[in-house]
């Protein structure tokens, strides 16, 4: 997206909604604004219908604020809770049939590389655990095997949240849910470990309790994907509605998980580390 496209002509500026004018005047498109500036600029994500205290919404918001170049980013979504928030973002967004997100992203990345050979266009897949670990696992894995230069971000709420609480592949073993009354019978799918051996140049596992880690990981994932290869980021975004805790405890639940089974982990190949080192030196 060129910033010229979003700038309204003076004659029509008054007709546009207040939120749009604020986005143009005080959004992150013209001046670089990152997570550390949150609260001082108009965010690219707008009001959404997520439940109160939603971890996914917090994850989506933190990722959106961390994007290094929102004007040159396209986000690919798929049905699920993540989609509700993303449909309201002021960045290019493409929804896909359930599970097809990495295949669609691969095509878009190739097309954008041809159309804009001199410019980085970031293709970011931002979907839930159902889209990546269950229904879209084949597309996701094959995009990594093909070394597509796309960023894949999973907002992992460990449940199919918007359809009433069915277990997903990422649900913890033994977890009882509305539609899994007997508890889940097998462990979480180790997507992070699979990413490491499937061609990802960079992979990270974080939670919404560590916003600065999310910013660091999103930045690294996008920069590595521009030059080296596929990257993967997994964010734990607990769901108060289906995991049955009070909505004001989302961050505490995430922080506790971070001390236990969802410890922060980072994986980086030598090539990706050299690329980041070079970028740091240049800047």
């Amino acid at each position, binding site marked *: 997206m060129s910033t010229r496209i979003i700038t309204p002509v003076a004659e029509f500026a008054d007709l546009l909604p207040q939120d749009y004018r604020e986005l143009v005047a005080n959004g992150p498109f013209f001046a670089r604004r990152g997570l550390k500036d949150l*609260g001082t600029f108009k965010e690219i994500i707008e009001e959404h219908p997520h439940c109160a205290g*939603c*971890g996914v919404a917090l994850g989506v*918001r933190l990722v959106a604020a961390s994007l290094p170049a929102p004007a040159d980013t396209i986000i690919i979504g798929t049905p699920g809770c993540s989609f509700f928030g993303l449909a309201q973002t002021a960045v290019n967004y493409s929804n896909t049939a359930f599970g097809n997100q990495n295949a669609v992203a691969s095509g878009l990345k190739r097309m954008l590389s041809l159309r804009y050979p001199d410019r980085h266009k970031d293709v970011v897949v931002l979907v839930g655990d159902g889209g990546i670990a269950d229904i879209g696992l084949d597309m996701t894995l094959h995009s990594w095997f093909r070394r597509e230069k796309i960023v894949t971000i999973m907002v992992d709420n460990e449940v199919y949240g918007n359809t009433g609480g069915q277990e997903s592949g990422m649900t913890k073993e033994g977890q009882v849910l509305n539609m899994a009354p007997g508890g889940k019978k097998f462990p979480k799918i180790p997507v992070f470990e699979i990413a490491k051996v499937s061609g990802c140049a960079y992979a990270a596992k974080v939670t919404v309790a560590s916003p600065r880690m999310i910013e660091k990981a999103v930045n690294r994932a996008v920069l590595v994907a521009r030059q080296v290869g596929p990257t993967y980021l997994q964010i734990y975004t607990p769901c108060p509605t289906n995991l049955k805790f009070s909505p*004001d405890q989302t961050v505490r639940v995430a922080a506790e998980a971070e001390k236990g089974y969802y410890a922060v982990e980072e994986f980086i190949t030598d090539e990706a580390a050299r690329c980041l080192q070079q970028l740091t030196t240049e800047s």
Partner: protein
Amino acid sequence: MYVSVRLAEEKCNGCRMCVFTCPDPNVFNFYKDKKKISVNASRCKGCGLCVVACPKEALSVSAG
């Protein structure tokens, strides 16, 4: 009755913990010069995440 977050401005020290824990966008504005936040109550869903995160107990969730 609309439940939303209320701010006791005199208690706020501008640490911005609330800004980083709110799942909804543009609820909090931060003023660098004053080192204070302000609340846009019409965007708040009243989850209380900011209330738990605030170290100064400057925020509360209530109706009216």
